[in-house]
């Protein structure tokens, strides 16, 4: 965009919203690409632009790359692939020795900065605190006791009504108040007062809004999705900007009197248009080379591992378990397979191909339990006899009242002392903690089957019809390639996470279930799978599930490493016995998994007895003082779409999203399309949010969570006067290696290419290299890299695959990322 002479509000608002952080309120936290606005461009160009325009740090510091190089985490051979062949020595010197000035003065902010430079007034510090307080009080979802008195007429109108009291005003001066009351005031008229020339309007608004992207972002999100708030509020970005402009005028009037010049009058230097072309300089080249070399050092190791590991010995199938694609399930699958060689595990998006809204018993609200972009038309209700909630008076509003407060400080105040000591010395599950099992009552009924026909509730059909059920089960089984050789029990394992004192709890649950635990979906698909009529239809479609086979839903708590089984009473006698044997193996695997995770927790002593280690890990989920109940998706780097055979017995260090897919079942790529459409935004979104929160934890991440203060239940800020913080807190990303996602697909390159080209949105992710893609040709076992719209053969650098036979001793020694190993004892 070039600076236009004229200003079109709708266009500018659209443009602003495009660039502002698109993060929903806390309860609906879902991972997404932080720099989604730049996705239309190639990755490195976008990073350069975001750096120069908005001042985001988009790469590691050169010093950090050099340290990685010295630690052997960046391969010299691979660096050479990325530097121009002529004068290689020269480039190596640039990479390794030259001193670079990495500081940045971003374009955004330069215009509005002139208030300070030319007028010597610090507008931000005079307007922000009041602005934040007002908008946060208006949007507040339940912290304040006396909430915004006017709330149903829109933000600006509500303020107008409050201002009509005639006595007390938010404004210090008359003019701003009069402008607010004047119905003819438009954003343009305010801008001409403040800015002057129309061609600077857009620049000014960008400067203004990006001085506090957190609040502007949430306003933009809520304008477009008002239903994200339980307690409805109507607000628009335009209203918000008008109010901020009024506060600025008020501040200036108060400081200078009513006579002051608009900002463009005193402009001393001509500014380049905000979005004019950004030059690619040598520093950016150096960063690009380091980053690519860093990534490919790891990618190469993985591709090598997949190609050179030994074939698996085939064993009799004793059980099958379908997990979520989530990288946190990568290791538990490995441990189960090790404990039970007859176990076959699968991975798929954790909503298990059943998309619906879930309405818990006793609740008026419905919550979406499928990937965010889907809009389901089904409703599943929970029916349960009695459901109790535990309560805690510490959160009671009356504890803040004067008289009641006097009473309780004299009485229950001392109860706090006991709780305080108790919570430190012996943390237990409490009302304040988030438990994945609370999502659904274990003994509840679910209205998964449609019985009342066409009748809908709020436009939603209650439950699925038999055909609809069959379609979903068929889709699931075919996409993971499970159409024959069914085991007696097929476990469907959803996942959730328990944590305590955690504002970002929604980001810990299943991303494919819109940030909720996957337990309901696991139960629904299992009920569908066990439904005789559904099986009959599937048999007609060529999938014969023996009647002895039963589906059993499970919830895996990823922070506690616990399995909860549902509906076990349906198991046949033989299966009950089998289940007991399986369960013993699961428990061993869960212990091992906790042990594997504990290697990253410095404060857990991994040398102890494995049960003690597991208990120490569990304790983290209920400890108030534990900012890291688990490390979530830290170090996620891979997404492997193919048969388990290509990754089984390969140690991928919990870094891989594993999506089962059999090219033989899907020769035309019909199911592959669905998988690619999902993994790009879901896994790619997670990966890039981790990437950007890691490289710039201050501007693109939320900083450390230790000082966070909850604002209106919708976001967190530092202290009471701060802007809302978006992105991930440092505790979630500190051990993350910022490497883009590499998707590895087992199929023929020409099929994958054709499939990719169907959906332009998905194509863009891969073509612009926000997610890298390598295809492994199943016939020739050779790798192809997707680059600039075509697949080209990839030459491996590695040719050794280290083997390891005792992982446990490795876990006890190593805290850092581990290389790809082949597990030897198979």
């Amino acid at each position, binding site marked *: 965009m070039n600076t236009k002479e004229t200003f079109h509000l709708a266009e500018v608002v659209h443009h602003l919203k495009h660039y502002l952080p698109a993060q929903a309120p806390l309860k609906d936290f879902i991972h997404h690409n932080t720099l989604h606005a730049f996705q239309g461009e190639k990755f490195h160009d976008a990073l350069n632009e975001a750096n120069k325009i908005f001042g985001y740090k988009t790469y590691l*510091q050169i010093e950090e790359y050099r340290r990685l190089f010295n630690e052997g985490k960046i391969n010299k051979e691979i660096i050479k692939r990325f530097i121009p062949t002529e004068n290689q020595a020269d480039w190596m010197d640039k990479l390794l020795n030259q001193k670079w000035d990495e500081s940045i003065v971003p374009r955004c902010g330069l215009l509005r900065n002139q208030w300070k430079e030319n007028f010597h007034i610090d507008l931000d*510090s005079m307007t922000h605190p*009041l602005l934040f*307080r007002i908008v946060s009080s208006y949007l507040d*979802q*339940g*912290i*304040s006791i*006396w*909430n*915004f008195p*006017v709330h149903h007429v829109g933000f600006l109108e509500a303020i107008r009504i409050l*201002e009509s*009291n*005639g006595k*007390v005003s*938010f404004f210090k001066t008359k003019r701003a108040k009069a402008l607010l009351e004047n119905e003819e005031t438009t954003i343009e008229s305010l801008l001409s007062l403040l800015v002057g020339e129309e061609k600077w309007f857009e620049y000014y608004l960008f400067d203004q809004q990006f001085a*506090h*992207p957190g609040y502007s972002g949430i306003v933009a999100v809520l304008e477009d999705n008002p239903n994200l708030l*339980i307690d409805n509020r109507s607000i628009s970005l335009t209203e918000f900007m008008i109010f901020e402009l009024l506060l600025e005028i008020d501040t200036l009037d108060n400081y200078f009197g009513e006579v002051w010049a608009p900002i463009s009058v005193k402009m001393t230097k001509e500014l380049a248009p905000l979005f004019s072309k950004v030059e690619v300089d040598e520093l950016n080249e150096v960063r690009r080379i380091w980053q690519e070399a860093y990534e490919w050092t790891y990618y190469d190791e993985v591709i090598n591992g997949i190609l050179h590991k030994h074939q698996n010995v085939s064993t009799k199938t004793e059980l099958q378990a379908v997990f979520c694609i989530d990288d946190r399930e990568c290791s538990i699958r490995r441990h189960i397979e090790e404990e039970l060689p007859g176990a076959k595990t699968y991975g798929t998006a954790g909503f298990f191909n059943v998309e619906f809204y879930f309405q818990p018993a*006793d*609740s008026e609200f419905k919550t979406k339990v499928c990937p965010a972009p889907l809009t389901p038309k089904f409703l599943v209700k929970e029916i349960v006899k009695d459901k109790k*909630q535990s309560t805690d008076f*510490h959160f009671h509003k009356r*504890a*803040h009242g*004067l008289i009641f*407060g*006097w009473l*309780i*400080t*004299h*009485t229950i*105040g*001392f109860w*706090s*002392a006991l*709780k*305080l000591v108790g919570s430190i*010395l012996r943390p237990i599950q409490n009302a304040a903690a*988030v438990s994945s099992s*609370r999502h659904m009552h274990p003994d509840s009924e679910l209205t998964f089957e449609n019985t009342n026909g066409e009748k809908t509730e709020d436009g939603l059909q209650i439950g699925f019809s038999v055909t609809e059920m069959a379609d979903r089960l068929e889709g699931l089984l075919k996409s993971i390639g499970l159409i024959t050789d069914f085991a007696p029990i097929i476990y469907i394992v959803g996942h959730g996470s328990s944590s305590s004192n955690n*504002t970002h*709890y929604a980001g810990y649950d299943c991303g494919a279930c819109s940030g909720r635990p996957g337990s309901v979906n696991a139960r629904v698909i299992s009920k569908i799978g066990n439904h005789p009529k559904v099986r009959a239809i599937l048999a007609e479609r060529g999938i014969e599930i023996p009647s002895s086979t039963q589906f059993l839903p499970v919830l895996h708590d990823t922070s506690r490493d616990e399995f909860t089984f549902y509906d076990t009473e349906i198991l046949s006698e033989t299966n009950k016995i089998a289940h007991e044997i399986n369960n013993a193996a699961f428990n061993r695997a869960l212990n091992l998994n906790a042990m594997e995770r504990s290697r990253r927790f410095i404060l857990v002593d991994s040398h102890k007895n494995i049960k003690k280690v597991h208990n120490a890990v569990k304790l983290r989920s209920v400890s*108030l*003082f*534990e900012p*890291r109940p688990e490390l979530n998706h830290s170090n996620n780097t891979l997404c492997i779409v193919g048969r388990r055979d290509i990754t089984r017995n390969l140690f991928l260090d919990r870094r891989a999203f594993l999506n089962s897919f059999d090219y033989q079942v899907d020769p035309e790529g019909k199911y592959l399309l669905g998988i690619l459409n999902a993994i790009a935004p879901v896994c790619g979104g997670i990966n890039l949010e981790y990437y950007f929160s890691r490289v710039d934890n201050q*501007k693109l991440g939320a*900083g*450390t969570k230790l*000082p*966070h*203060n*909850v604002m209106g*239940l919708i976001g967190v800020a*530092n*202290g009471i006067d*701060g802007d809302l913080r978006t992105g991930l807190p440092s*505790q979630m990303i500190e051990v993350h290696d910022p490497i883009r996602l590499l998707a590895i697909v087992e199929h023929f390159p020409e099929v994958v290419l054709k499939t990719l080209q169907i959906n332009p949105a998905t194509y863009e992710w891969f073509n612009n290299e926000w997610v890298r893609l390598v295809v492994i040709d199943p016939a020739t076992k050779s790798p192809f890299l997707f680059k600039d719209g075509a697949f080209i053969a990839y030459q491996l650098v590695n040719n050794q695959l280290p083997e390891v036979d005792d992982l446990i001793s490795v876990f006890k020694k190593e805290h850092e990322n581990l290389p790809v190993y082949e597990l030897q004892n198979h």
Partner: protein
Amino acid sequence: MEGFIHLFIILPFVCFFASLLIPKKNEKALSVLAYTSVGLQFFSAMVFSIIWIINKMPVINLKEFSIYKTSNYDFFIDFYFDKITLVYLILGSMITFVITVYSRYYLHREDGYKRFFNTILFFYLGFNIIIFSGNVETLFIGWEILGLSSFLLIAFYRDRYLPVKNAVKVFSIYRIGDVGLILVMWLSHHLWHENISFFKLNNAELVHSHLMENSLVGLAISLMIFISAAAKSAQLPFSSWLPRAMEGPTPSSAIFYGSLSVHIGAFLMLRTFPFWEFQTGFRIFLGFAGFATAVVATFIGRVQSSIKSQIAYSSIAQIGLIFIEIAAGLQNVALVHIAGNAFLRTYQLLVSPSIVSYKIREQFYNFVPRVKTIEDSWPKRFEYALYILSLKEWNLDSMLYSYLWNPLKRIGTKWKVLNFKYIFVFAGSVVFIGLIMLNFSNNIPERYKSNLPVLFAIVGFLIVIKAFTERDSVRKSWTLIMLNHITIAVAISFNEQFDWMHHVWYLSGIVIAWFIGLLVLNNLRKQEWVSLDQFYGHSYEHPKIAILFLLCALGLSGFPITPSFVGEDLIFSHIHYNQIGLAFFTALSLIINGLATIRIYARVFLGPHIKTYHEVAKRSS
């Protein structure tokens, strides 16, 4: 039993210094040291309290030693133990123990893990000195430590703008309280003709007879005590600092502003109760002040949409009630109330992040669209006006700016007659002329001489204002602060009886601190650009220089690490109690002096780093 009292002071002291020696990386040693020593303190306190109760709760007073003594002046350290001390001791050691254990895990891997534990232990030392203090002088040492450790913990995230800005803001309010205490010491000195101990205040007859003679001085002392207590306990008109202090890690906010630090003002009122017990007028005033705070803070608290500010204002309101209880002489009720409030708010702050999941779940199941509150039944215009007023915190935050700091700044900036080039010449000549005049002071006619102290005090005040509003040169500002001290010394010297030794006490620490500070600044200037127009954040690259300079700044502002601390009190003892002008300008100078010093430290070393090659937070975050 005396042995215990010594232990209670020595243990935190040793522990704090030991924590300074532990290497930064050794998280375990730091936290273990902290919680075992505080835990030991808690345990000994429990044992001691049993012994003490069995012995029928005797009040213990221990006069330790004199730091400086002349015929009519004695700056001595004194310890004291009674029921109030016991409650604060158990409360303090228990909460600090819990917080140190909590922080051991909570702060794991955080930058500044060591700094955090150092500061907590430093705070704990100050807290113990205060609660065991037997006279105002001893209490003042602890008071200063508390103020500094608060500043350091609020600015814990020193690379962001808001924590640093708020730390300076809170420090400025604390400074008012500090000077209140200095004035208390000054007036007390004149009232009692000695440095009185709290123990002697229990002698009702003695107090009564002195107050009968000087009821006005008595009232002035009580008001100064109130100002100090109100500043520390966030009572009106100082309340707005408390929520703004919640910038550090949550457990530090819990211990400081939820529980211990914020109840220290109440401690001061309880401790000095025997002094103002018979000043009925003051007691009524105190009751009303507490009531006003309770009402205003309740309304402000009701509209808060952030969890920590809501807790802060609820706590302020309860402390308002505690002040009423103290005014009414209900000491036991107040003590129970203090303990209950401290525990409750600590726990509420610690679990505050859980409010999201808790409330969202609650709403999900039992949603009531909008709760009607009592205000909804009031006339709309009144409701709206009160809502806006409460949302703006009754203008408490802006009030301090519009009535105190801004006018001072205006004096500083309007005082442009003297271009900066000449300010040194000016200040230098003032000092020089002063010294000459001093030398011949016997020849100056009495009628001029009596006006000289206040004249010099005013000049000194203008010099420090200039230092405070300087936007450019760090070294000039730094030197002007030192010159301000000298001008004050000169001013006092015109009072008939002065002793050069007193000036040596007063200026020794200051001049040395100034000189070393100057060297430190010169060293830094060789490597970096420094100025006072914005925050530079040089502690990012130069943490060691930052610590050294902080020590110099403390020395220059009379913090109890140099003899100047005693000197400040000494200087005041030379101000006659009818020299209100002199006392006023000297006190004002000291307030601004401290602020100007900490401002230099903050601007040069704290805040967002001026270099942007690494991650730097937005100013608004």
